């Protein structure tokens, strides 16, 4: 591709999955071939885990139980605050409790297909295998999954799956799974195997002699910047949806840890793969600080529509049936309002772009329960969706029983992340990446109820069975602040903090963040085009330039200073945004949640290009302003055959 925005390097490949045996035996074979660490030696080995969400919390607890010395870092006050807590829907597992034909192979198949053939078969198969252990583990911990009257676990079908394999705890599944991991983690803290570093933010990775050996962290209360050493480092720091400023992520969710690691040599895979969720509460005004997701189960009974005429500002209740366009039912008669997330999102954008959007700013579509209320009656709707309707009323001040809800898509999850091999090790020896922070299992599109599964699979069952193969070579030679690489990383961080405080310009970190987010949403969001992405790539360096010359951060270094924290995160988002746009520009195909204007069928549907793009794009950072280097990992499909998705 004729771009001077990047160069192409050597291909990259996973070398850890034992491909000499059939796929169903690969995980057990890998566990057998991985070297072990004698229990007596584990206490001599230190592992740093950054993050306490489903992946980080479960990994830190499990490694502590195994007898390693764990140092756990997180930026919140308590491990229980990690944003996994906000996941609503559920967690998939191939238990086949419903006797409806589910199996490990079917979950594997659905996930590869759902990822639009851009994930690795080996990793996904393993995910499906350990899914059943996750449910057992969580039940043993006391996670209060929904149950039936006979005392057995309840299941539901989720996200268009044809089997009922989703376990759930009302609309708070993420919260309950997280508390299970959190309680296991607190137990290890009491036992002394896990040392806690609350309100610490990782600001750099320390590499000594080619191995990840520690991190530089800032104590967010005292401002002290300090170094911490280990034999291996595990990043479980979540996704980067907040590059868009407005997303369903928590305010603090950020990309700094993975971006710093990327700048130290970890390849970043598929950064442009983001997921846009169709049923969020629309933006209200300039002050808006985040977006709130409502479960997509609402589309089971709600009908999506906009007025047929653009600029129709009548009260929705006064718009007669024949002047409404139920566009999903019209375009996709077979699936109607239940089309997958990416399609529902993109069509909402299309009708709003046509000027038929509703609500403030014209960025919204109606989700109407009028018919369902007539058919089922209000009590049935209350029983099914009461909590969601209350939440909507609380936020918007409108009563969705009386007037249609307004919804609009919002960024929700990032499938891209740091490149890892089958062992979940990054391109930096000794640095492992788990959960949403890595790129591994969801391809170009994540299925519902799969994020919780992946986070816990990585933390409870995968990492604790692969990291030993690396640690078997340890303990590594002791390092301290006197080592030149350590001193350099420490100075780097301190210099950066000082720089952010000293610019003393006229714009707050939030104002830059909003501007960047708007740009990314418009040009690198649901639909991307060559022209738009090039425009974004012209604009981002200008934003960066202004950021570093006109930023205003008040307050001091040596105290709790959220403005300073935000400034550092925005600086990294600006750099990441540029890589996302380059990745999106080079991938001239539509796939998964990523629609490319130049790659569509005559009917305007997404057109994947397996000939040219059936690979993982792993990007290498090059210092001093040189363009990034693309390393391709070719994807091969031995078990699930390549096919185009169709919902017509």
């Amino acid at each position, binding site marked *: 591709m004729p771009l001077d925005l990047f160069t192409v390097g050597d291909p990259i490949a996973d070398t850890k999955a034992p491909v000499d045996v059939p796929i169903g035996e690969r995980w057990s074979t890998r566990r057998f071939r991985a070297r072990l660490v004698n229990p007596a030696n584990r206490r001599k080995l230190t592992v740093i885990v950054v993050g306490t969400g489903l992946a980080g919390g*479960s990994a830190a607890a*499990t490694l502590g139980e195994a007898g390693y010395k764990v140092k756990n870092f997180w930026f*919140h*006050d*308590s491990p*229980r*605050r990690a*944003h996994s*807590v*906000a996941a609503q829907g559920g967690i998939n597992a191939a238990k086949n*409790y419903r006797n409806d034909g589910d199996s490990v192979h079917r979950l594997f198949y659905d996930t590869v297909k759902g990822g639009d053939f851009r994930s690795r078969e080996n990793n996904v198969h393993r995910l499906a295998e350990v899914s059943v252990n996750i*449910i*057992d583990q969580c*039940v*043993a*911990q*006391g996670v*209060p999954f*929904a*149950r*039936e009257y006979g*005392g057995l676990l309840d299941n539901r079908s989720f996200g268009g799956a044809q089997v009922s394999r989703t376990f759930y*705890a009302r609309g708070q599944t993420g*919260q309950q799974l997280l*508390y299970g991991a959190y*309680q*296991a983690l607190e*137990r290890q803290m009491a036992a002394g195997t896990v040392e806690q570093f*609350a309100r610490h933010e990782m600001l750099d990775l320390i590499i000594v002699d080619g191995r990840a050996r520690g991190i530089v962290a800032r104590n967010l209360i005292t401002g002290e910047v300090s170094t911490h050493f280990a034999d291996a480092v595990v990043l479980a720091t979540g996704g980067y949806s907040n590059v868009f400023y407005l997303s369903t992520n*928590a*305010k603090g969710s950020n990309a700094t840890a993975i971006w710093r690691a990327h700048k130290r040599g970890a390849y970043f895979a598929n950064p442009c793969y983001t997921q846009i969720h169709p049923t969020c509460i*629309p*933006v*209200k*005004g*300039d*002050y*808006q*600080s985040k977006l709130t997701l409502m479960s997509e189960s609402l589309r089971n009974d709600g009908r999506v529509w906009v007025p047929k005429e653009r600029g129709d500002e009548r009260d929705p209740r006064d718009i007669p049936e024949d002047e409404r366009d139920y566009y999903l039912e019209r375009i996709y008669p077979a699936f109607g309002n239940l089309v997958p997330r990416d399609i529902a999102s993109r069509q909402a954008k299309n009708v709003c772009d046509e000027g038929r959007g509703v609500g403030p*700013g014209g*960025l919204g579509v109606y989700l109407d329960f009028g018919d369902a209320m007539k058919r089922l009656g209000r009590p049935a709707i209350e029983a099914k969706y009461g909590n969601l309707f209350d*939440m909507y*009323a*609380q*936020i*918007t*001040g409108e009563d969705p029983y009386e007037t249609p809800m307004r919804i609009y898509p919002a960024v929700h999850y990032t499938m891209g992340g740091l490149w890892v091999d089958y062992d979940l090790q990054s391109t930096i020896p000794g640095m492992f990446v788990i959960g949403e922070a890595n790129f591994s299992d969801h391809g170009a599109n994540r299925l519902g109820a799969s994020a919780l599964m992946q986070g816990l699979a990585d933390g*409870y*069952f995968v990492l604790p069975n692969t990291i030993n193969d690396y640690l078997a070579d340890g303990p590594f030679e002791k390092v301290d602040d006197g080592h030149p690489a350590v001193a350099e990383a420490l100075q780097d961080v301190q210099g950066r903090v000082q720089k952010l405080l000293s610019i003393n310009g006229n714009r*707050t970190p*939030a*104002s830059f963040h*909003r501007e960047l*987010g708007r740009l990314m949403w418009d040009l690198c969001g649901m639909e991307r085009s060559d022209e738009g992405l090039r425009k974004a790539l012209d604009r981002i360096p200008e934003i960066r330039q202004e950021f570093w010359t006109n930023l*205003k*951060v*008040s*307050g001091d270094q040596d105290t709790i200073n*959220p*403005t300073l924290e935000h400034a550092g995160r925005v600086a990294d988002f600006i750099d990441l945004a540029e890589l996302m746009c380059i990745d999106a520009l080079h991938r001239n195909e539509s796939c998964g949640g990523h629609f490319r204007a130049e790659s569509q069928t005559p009917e305007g549907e997404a057109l994947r290009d397996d000939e040219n793009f059936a690979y993982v794009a792993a990007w290498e950072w090059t210092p001093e302003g040189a363009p990034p280097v693309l390393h391709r990992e070719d994807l091969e499909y031995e078990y699930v055959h390549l096919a185009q998705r169709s919902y017509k």
Partner: protein
Amino acid sequence: MTATREGASFASGTATDPAMAPHGMTLTLRIWRQKGPADKGRMVTYQVEDISPDMSFLEMLDVLNEKLILADDDPVVFDHDCREGICGSCGLMINGTAHGRGTSGGPTTTCQLHMRKFKDGDTIDIEPWRATAFPVIKDLSVDRGALDRIIQSGGYISAPTGTAPEAHSILVPKKDSDAAFDAATCIGCGACVAACPNASSMLFTAAKVSHLGLFPQGQPERNERVVNMIAQQDLEGFGGCTNIGECSAACPKGISMENISRLNHDLLGALRAGARPKS
């Protein structure tokens, strides 16, 4: 004052769009400012203008902070994260009520409180949680580490990874499972402590004791769990529970007083069975 200086607008609604025009509430905020644990602290008065009724309470504070940053003042520190009522980070005393009062007049989290609850010209008092066991870090941010230490003392079921039996080998009656879920929804925000005249953490502790004690898996450690968690909450400096019920009334997740009864029942049983706290 508008929400952003540069006027970048997200919803493509700008000041020229009548639907997005400033709604113009002017409010007087009296906010607790305290530089650190050693500082005495004081209420400081601020004015905010053009506050939209659609803003959340925390977005209103964002607006104030943007103004303070550009004036080279120290912005007001407060904890927050998910802004959808589930992470438990936020927690402010608003006009003397923990988290303020939500849309229907019932409890809420601070992040789910919206400015349409207030009217033009109102004065709003904003203070941190006040309890000996929750020392102020700065301004409105307090240290709630004591709650984590209560969990450490016994708020778990010992089930190391890999040891679990098949999930369906443990049957749980639906009513127990539902009651356990209700208790388990506690988000650890600390509103119960802030609302309690004794600054007791009993509702928090009782929620966890109930959640785990209602499950068959939680039985082996049931007696030790309750005595150790009670001992830890005393050690942390929380007050004793006198069944006033302010905790439950302020709880954004509706954790009921029934959990405290269950804890008391468990505690009595445990003590009679000879359970004593560690050390």
